[in-house]
């Protein structure tokens, strides 16, 4: 089965009448993975969809305007056997009068529709029609739905302390409770900020997944389709009423441009984009007040491009006359460039194509990656930071009577969970900086701190890192010297079984023991 694009004949006729003269409702254009049919009156009577969509694997609808009432379209699409959240809608005004451009936009919409992985019941939120009387409300026949994110419990790491989505939500719609993370649909005004804040892709908006964006952007930049010349990718807000027809620029619609991390703004350059622009809702700026965040991320992207010897003009907040596309380098483009954990890979791949020594070290609030600093004198190597790190950038690596904490910069998203969980923050044990450093991103996992591990006197099993035991001794003080010795000498299991009487801590320790050095057996 192939994909199908149903285009409103009236909309096409308005901009390119000669192109569809004499065309019937049968296939008008053939795409690589589907075909396009022009349907008279599609915008006025969505019921015709059921007549045409039979047998198609995926559906794209091209309307004269994207402002049509959604409910009849969604109901018809459901009747035709499709999930409305997986049906792409193209605004024909965006295509302008260029058939080649229209074909490219259709191909990209088909690619995005084919990457739809299905939705869950929790992904549809009902919105009431604009005008409805009290009485009619109780007879409501047709409802409109918008896509909202849902939580994938099997991926969520909230039990490890992560609250990235809760903190990112500007509406307070996400909460953590005993049962895990939950989203209140009544409060959610789908902006997508939680989806990109989540470091493990556990918050899923099925209409804007990394796979869908990747498919759409790759297709829009595929030189074998569409008009010749440089192309730009324009991230536009779903709320925006702007219709962009600037030559060479192709819109990619997202719920809110504030959700796009800097790596999204840079990734299309790896696929051959001449430039990337990000445009908020409208002239009044972002409705969610994310203008500052967008500006920060654009600023970071420009600094990075400058550092690697590319024109910083390639990332901007408004479309402009496009420069020639940069010459592709020899580096391999990483896969899943829009996935949360891909930011580091995007930056390094871009640097490999740069012309200016390939190095950069930028500390900036718009950086999508971070650098964890651990101060050896203050860290007790307890491993809490590694246990809570959602992306496993920090890892606890035991072995050979010692334990290390390692850091892999390319995995770090600067979420800050390690700092939240560290019990030694007041002593300055750990800090995260929004720093993108080429060297750190490229070197893989490296040891930050380590410690020898005390072994159980009875069974030989590891007890705890020596640095941690020393810190415990320091907190307990010299009065608890025998208790300290017990803790360092026996593992938890052996203490549960019972210990020799001679090793039991005294009920009261003489003050004269104060200051005695701790002897730790390894």
């Amino acid at each position, binding site marked *: 089965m192939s994909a199908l694009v149903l285009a409103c004949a009236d909309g096409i006729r308005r901009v390119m009448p000669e192109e569809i003269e004499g065309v019937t409702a049968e296939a008008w254009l053939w795409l690589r993975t589907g075909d396009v049919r022009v349907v008279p009156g599609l915008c006025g009577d969505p019921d015709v969809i059921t007549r045409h969509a039979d047998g198609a694997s995926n559906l794209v609808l091209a309307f004269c305007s994207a402002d049509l009432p959604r409910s009849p379209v969604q109901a018809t699409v459901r009747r035709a056997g499709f999930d409305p959240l997986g049906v792409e809608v193209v605004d024909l005004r965006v295509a302008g009068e260029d058939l080649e451009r229209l074909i490219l936009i259709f191909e990209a919409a088909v690619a995005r529709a084919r990457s739809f992985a299905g939705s869950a019941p929790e992904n549809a939120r*009902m919105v009431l029609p604009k005008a409805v009387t009290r009485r009619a409300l109780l007879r409501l026949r047709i409802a409109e739905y918008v896509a909202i994110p849902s939580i994938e419990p099997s991926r969520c790491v909230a039990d490890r302390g992560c609250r990235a989505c809760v903190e990112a939500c500007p509406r307070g719609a996400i909460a953590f409770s005993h049962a895990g993370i939950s989203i209140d649909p009544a409060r959610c005004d789908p902006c997508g900020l939680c989806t990109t804040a989540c470091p493990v892709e556990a918050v899923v908006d099925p209409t804007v997944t990394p796979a869908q964006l990747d498919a759409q952007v790759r297709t829009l930049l595929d030189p074998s389709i569409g008009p010749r010349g440089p192309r730009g990718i324009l991230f536009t807000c779903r709320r925006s009423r702007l219709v962009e027809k600037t030559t060479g620029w192709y819109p990619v619609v997202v719920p809110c441009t504030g959700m796009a991390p800097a790596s999204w703004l840079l990734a299309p350059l790896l696929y051959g984009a001449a430039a990337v622009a990000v445009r908020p809702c409208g002239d009044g700026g972002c409705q969610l007040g994310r203008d500052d965040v967008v500006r920060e991320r654009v600023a970071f992207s420009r600094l990075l491009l400058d550092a690697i010897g590319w024109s910083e003009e390639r990332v901007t907040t408004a479309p402009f006359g496009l420069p020639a596309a940069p010459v592709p380098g020899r580096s391999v483009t990483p896969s899943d460039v829009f996935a949360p954990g891909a930011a580091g890979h995007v930056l390094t791949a871009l640097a490999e194509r740069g012309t200016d020594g390939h190095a950069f070290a930028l500390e900036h609030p718009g950086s999508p990656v971070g650098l964890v600093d651990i101060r050896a004198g203050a860290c007790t190597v307890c491993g809490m930071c590694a246990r809570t790190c959602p992306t496993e950038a920090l890892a606890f690596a035991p072995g050979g009577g010692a334990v290390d904490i390692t850091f892999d910069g390319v995995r770090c998203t600067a979420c800050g969970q390690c700092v939240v969980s560290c019990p030694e923050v007041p002593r300055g044990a750990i800090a995260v900086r929004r720093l993108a450093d080429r060297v750190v991103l490229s070197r893989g996992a490296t040891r930050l701190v380590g410690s020898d591990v005390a072994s159980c006197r009875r069974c030989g099993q590891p007890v705890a890192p020596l640095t941690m035991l020393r810190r415990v001794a320091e907190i307990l003080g010299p009065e608890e010297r025998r208790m300290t010795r017990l803790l360092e000498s026996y593992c938890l299991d052996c203490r549960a079984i019972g210990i020799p009487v001679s090793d039991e801590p005294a009920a009261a320790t003489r003050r004269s023991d104060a200051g005695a050095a701790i002897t730790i057996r390894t």
Partner: protein
Amino acid sequence: MTARPSQIGLARLRQGLYRFIAAGLMPPDQERVAALASAIKVIDASTIDGFAFATWWRPLGAVLDGAPSVGDLEADYVRLFEAGVNKPPCPLVESAYLSLPRGPGALLVDVDREYRRFGLAVNPLVSLPADHAVLELEAMAALCAREDEAADRGDVDEARHVLGEEERFLERHLARWFPVMARRGAMVGGGGFYGTLLTAARAFVHHDRDLVATLAKHHGLTRDRGLVRDCGLQAVR
């Protein structure tokens, strides 16, 4: 004269769906399976396509068209809802999904009190606990029927009042645990009748909570999260 399916009111449609799910979660027998197979045809022909949960209801028709054998259904029913090493994979009672430090007593009393508020009482001949899914679904169906009758009479205030009761019951009980049970059951039940029914039921209950909350908000009714907040009970995964 009977109404055509397309003319069925929203509350009447919801009542039918609640009753369908309740019947589907009763122990299977030949007569009930036949009744469900004919009911799904009526549902398919109704205005269901206008609602998001329709996506998950469509496969039910195909499953019931395949005429599943009662023997197989019985085996699945026992495996999913009644038997297990410690307990079945997805028991059909609310108390199995809440953290209840003092046992299910307070919960059962609260559910029973809710039924009485609505003027309902559990038939003593029915050997099901008050917090059983079938009874909670039937209670919602009864409320929907009452809302529909009020709307038919043009008594908007009564319909609003019943809507508030529906929201209260969903928030306090059914919507809090049923989707969790249904998700778990669908995973264990796979593509069979119960897996498909539970997926559809989860979509519907989730949607109904959303719908009722939206309508109640429009009518200016306040939200009552109820027992879970009052008694410190917490839903479990």
